[in-house]
């Protein structure tokens, strides 16, 4: 069994864990966005979507456990990588300049990651660990939350942060998995940018749109 640790424990192994869990999160975001699009069709569509989703029962619980495990892997590996990388250059440069590879998104990955993690916790407290009743449906909870300007701003900023994280993460995961090919990489890079825009706009407009239709 040592070979498994000796594979995943290396620098490339850890990259793989980040890439694979990241790919799953992108899949989750697509599913989540697909569900949330029902919000754009009003209260009843969204509540009916939520009902159908929870009717899946054990499947939802299994998905939740998988996501939680992936989260633990992504966050722990990310923390290990962050501190190992800091330690790899104990004396920093006096003059810092980009040679042309680094982007805003790539340079801020650990920080946008921490922001997304704290947002996910807040998001779960807001919408997941709340008692839903026929008088207080999930739509009511969402619209009440977004009616507060503070939450509205936090949610919009969080979605910009997610878009930034995905814009580097998407092409990066293909590179890590070894899928860098002159034919496909330009397409993958563009898809990553489109995807981050879709997430940013698709989720980011909800906090503005929902209070409008709720009143």
């Amino acid at each position, binding site marked *: 069994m*040592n*070979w498994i640790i*000796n*594979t995943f424990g*290396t*620098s*490339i*192994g*850890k*990259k*793989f864990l980040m890439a694979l869990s990241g790919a799953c999160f992108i899949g989750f975001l697509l599913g989540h966005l697909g569900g949330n699009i029902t919000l754009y069709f009003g209260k009843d569509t969204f509540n009916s979507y939520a009902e159908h989703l929870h009717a899946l029962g054990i499947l939802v619980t299994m998905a939740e456990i998988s996501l939680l495990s992936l989260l633990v892997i992504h966050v722990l590996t990310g923390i290990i*990588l962050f501190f*190992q*990388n800091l*330690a*790899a*250059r*104990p*004396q*920093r*440069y*006096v*003059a*810092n*300049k*980009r*040679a*042309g*590879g*680094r982007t805003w998104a*790539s*340079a801020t*990955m650990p920080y946008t990651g921490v922001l997304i993690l704290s947002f996910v916790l807040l998001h779960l407290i807001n919408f997941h660990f709340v008692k839903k009743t026929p008088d207080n449906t999930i739509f009511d909870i969402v619209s009440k939350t977004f009616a507060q300007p503070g939450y509205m701003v936090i949610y919009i900023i969080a979605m910009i942060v997610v878009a930034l994280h995905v814009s*580097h993460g998407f*092409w*990066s995961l293909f*590179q*890590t*998995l*070894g*899928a*860098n*090919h*002159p034919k496909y990489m330009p397409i993958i890079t563009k898809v990553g940018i489109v995807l981050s825009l879709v997430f940013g706009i698709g989720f980011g407009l909800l906090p503005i749109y929902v209070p409008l239709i709720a009143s």
Partner: protein
Amino acid sequence: MTTQGKTINITLKVWRQKGPGVKGKLETIEAKNISTDMSFLEMLDTINEGRIVQGKEPIEFDNDCREGICGMCGAVVNGIPHGPEKAMTLCQLHMRKFKNEDIIVVEPWRARAFPIIKDLVVDRSALDKIIQSGGFVSMVAGGAPDANAIPISQNIAEKAMDAAACIGCGACVAACPNASAMLFVSAKISQLALLPQGKPEAAQRAWNMVHAMDDCGFGNCTNEKECEAACPKEISIVNIARMNREFIKAGFASHVM
């Protein structure tokens, strides 16, 4: 000596460190009348000649061929390894790329795996250790094989040659925000993995070299692409993707453990 070339005055802020493990600092050195036809290293030579006459310690820096092919020279100039020009080693950088009154910050490669020996000279033997762990092909030297006995397509030969252009200067490590050596290691793994002569040992090589790289204390690649941008030989990060494939193949689909 009838023609008088253009000269500039510059201010250097050079990293001075007496030895390994001791505290270093930037020293400000005024350099007057530097010919713009000088290379960066010739400029340092000129400063050093003056310093020796004045009884001051010269600035130590690594260099050898001064043709951009040996991989010995290199310093971080204004935050970029080998200076601001693309695809160029420090010895090929000329002072005409700088303006009069420029302030130039010169620092050594900075990485835990590259301890500073003195001033701008760093110990890059970590890269040798990685090569020793598998960056070669083992073969019984017999009679020379016939030319073209092993068919290799031009496309593959070019890719292997592009990877083999790596001169092992360490600029990728210096440029990487994480001080990772993955561009170097991936070039060395790729140049052999692409060719039939390297295939028999590919799995063991990828496994050994990646573990040797980690043992040397380099950081982890986070796909920042700074290495590729700073590399004087323009080694592509496509090689890193190939190394990732080779390593995962070695980990999950080979006998190596």
